[in-house]
């Protein structure tokens, strides 16, 4: 048995050795907001934060999450609150499937960079594929979220 702390709550899991966090979170714990997209850290749909750092959960072992604070899309933070508002204001999602990962990647950016430049945004977000093609809106929403967060 391993204990995973996700969004402040403890979960006991009995994960097979070598199981990535993605599947422990989705299949064993039942938090399905974190998405499977490629399985090889190419698309970012499975992004989560471990102690504030974004990782691709499809390629991160369960053992790497034990004893750490894991944040998934079901969680919240000042950055996520600002980002969600900007996402609403810009009607960002189409199918919505990649947006969990997009929001988590954007949250790390806002947590660590008070004034991201366009290049900072591109670099932080280019590991996340959106097949619907909402990049223009994601970028605009991130810039607005930066301002919203400052107003709080």
């Amino acid at each position: 048995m391993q204990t995973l702390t996700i969004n402040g709550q403890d979960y006991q899991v009995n994960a097979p050795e070598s199981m990535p966090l993605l599947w422990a979170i989705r299949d064993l714990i039942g938090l399905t907001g974190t998405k499977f997209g490629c399985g090889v850290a190419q698309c970012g749909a499975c992004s989560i934060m471990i102690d504030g750092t974004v990782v691709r959960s499809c390629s991160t072992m369960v053992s790497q999450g034990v004893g750490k604070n894991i944040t998934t899309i079901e969680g919240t933070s000042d950055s996520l609150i600002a980002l969600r508002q900007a996402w609403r204001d810009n009607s960002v999602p189409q199918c919505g499937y990649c947006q969990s990962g997009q929001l988590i990647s954007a949250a790390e950016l806002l947590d660590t960079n008070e004034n991201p430049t366009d290049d900072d945004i591109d670099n932080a977000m280019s590991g996340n594929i959106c097949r619907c093609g909402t990049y223009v809106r994601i970028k605009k929403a991130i810039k607005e979220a930066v301002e919203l967060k400052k107003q709080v």
Partner: protein
Amino acid sequence: MKRRDFVKIFGLATGGLLLGCNVSADKVVVNTLEDGISFVPNLFIQLQKDGTVTIVVARSEMGQGIRTSMASAIAEDLEADWKYVTVQQATGDAKFGNQNTDGSRSIRTLLKPMRKMGAMARSILEQAAAKKWNIAASDCKAENHFVVNNTTGEKVFFGDLVEEAKTIAIPSDENIILKDKKDFKYIGKKVVRGIDMEDFLHGKANYGLDARLPNMKFAAIARSPVTFGSVKSFDTSEATEITGVEQVVQLDRLIPPAGQFFGMLGGVAVIANNTWSAFQGKNNLNVEWESGINESYDTEKFKEKLISRIHNKAKVVPPFKGSIEKAFKNADKVIEATYTMPHLAHAPMEVPNALAWVHDGQCDVWAPVQDPQTVQAEIAHFFGFAIEDITINVMMLGGAFGRKSKSDFVVEAVALSQKIKAPVQVVWTREDDIQHSFYHAQNAQYLKGSLDEKGKVTGWLHRVAFPSITSSFKPMSNYIAGFELGMGFTNNPYEIENIQIENAKAESHLRIGWLRSVSNIISGFGVNSFVDELAIASGKDAIEFRLDLLGKDKVSTAASPHPFNVARLKNVLIEAKKLSNWERKLPEGHGMGVAIHYSFYSYVATVVEVSVKSEKVKVENIYSVLDCGMYVNRDAVINQMEGAAIFGMSLTMFGKISTKNGAVEQSNFHDYQMTRMIDAPNIHVHLVDNDEDPTGVGEPGVPPVSAAITNAIFNASGKRVRSLPLSDHGMV
């Protein structure tokens, strides 16, 4: 016989009110109860006493925003306050009419009946209020979830009219009055927050992959690398060593009957108690495959074969116009060009998946499907269930682009659940998705055109070859179907005296399917590239040349629900010229290109600005103008056009599925790449406002993108790209 009652009022167990309406396509089908015809409503509005309005949506949500658009179209004429509006996803059921979410047709065919349904409900509520106040209905007016007494100003809440409404007779047609356009609050506006927005933002939206049942199993299937290959032998010893793996099951291929359904490829399935173990088990299988008839398929060789075929006379298809021989003989200049594009895979972010549970003589499915009724019919065909014993729960689709119209992944789940007698979710890996798709067809086009001494186009020969979608339904279909040629080949919009369209043979060696915009992608690239080459040969401006070539304003007389109007195509081109500031001076190394395309009854012009530095292309700006007639959710339409620009860019820059020895070479996003944010251009969208009937939105934005990019590359660098993708030329 009275034939005007198209709505029935039902009481709900909760004390609410249910209005059921029967609509078919864009017309209202009238069933009166007195006829003895059973009334089968297919559009529902529920009103609860707390004011909640629930609208049943029978189309699949895959990012186009249909749940929001349908609900807001009804809410408009109902005078509903958006905060009380919710939607309920319909299961697959013939009573809902056509549920196939495909062909950019939902709003085109359903806007009118949805609005009428809303207006009907509004009329009932106004009459209910009139009865309550004992005044004439004409003195009552619905306003934002209340009915107002015009004389006294008194207001009554919609929810408080439920009981009274149950006693109201069905309004006659003349009492169903649609709102005037000037009073619209939702249609054509951006005021509505997407119905699924909060779920998207909190990871709560339920996609197919999120379907869960107690004690469900998870399955991954190894399929033959060569299409339609079969299992020769397999060894499960290393697979069953994986923790969580429970059993290994062989699945035979199911071949659909000619003309319908999709069947399944068959293979070896690993059943586990979690997805990861199923994936690992599949990787650990040792399967020996019998490759079969497609073993020698090599897309590079096939490309050469297609090119040699289109360089020779092929099957001439209608319409025939004039004589190209004469035109070419009398020409001042003759231009010819050959264009090729590879196979493509849809690669929706959510892989194909389905949860099925066969139990007690019934079959329950939870899956992200575009066409639930075909799934139902297909399950009935292959497994012998009665239609009424099959329930298709339509989950949210994490992208689809045509892939989820094909129900092979559901058939797999049902076959497995039947075998193992447990609920089981089949999950495709990304590798499975890229390597076992229903592919957009590899293609080749040869165009030859003649110009007179004034630079006017006098002759046009267009020869095309690609394996047809029909081949997936009828083996040995070696020529392009009429519906595919009708996507930009035989309905060429230009006014040219002598035109000949020819179709050369192309066999299929993979499953061929439709992908967002279908063969419009092929014609959009070929026709727009070649017109550009003609414009350059004539020495004219690319936009002026096209406006001239489109000829006089006229509306097509061909039978069509929305006849082609060349003036609208010219208009989007003129608007794109303005939007892109076409004649502006560009920075060093930059170039602009233009393309236009008519598809799904909508008109699109796209201008692209690229920069080319050391042979590398960067798309700087995409300007797209869409005329889709009346639209519902303005912002969702713009979002679709932005997405179409990126979709078109991805296939232009990177899109290539190739095969060696019959097997697909690409496997995941590292070698089947997508445009990412770092490469995303600025995208500028303009929507034409008019009162024309609503037409397609989801697909029409894609076809012009490729040629607009390659035309811009020529403008920037003088290099003409005639084969896609750009990554084959080292340009990305």
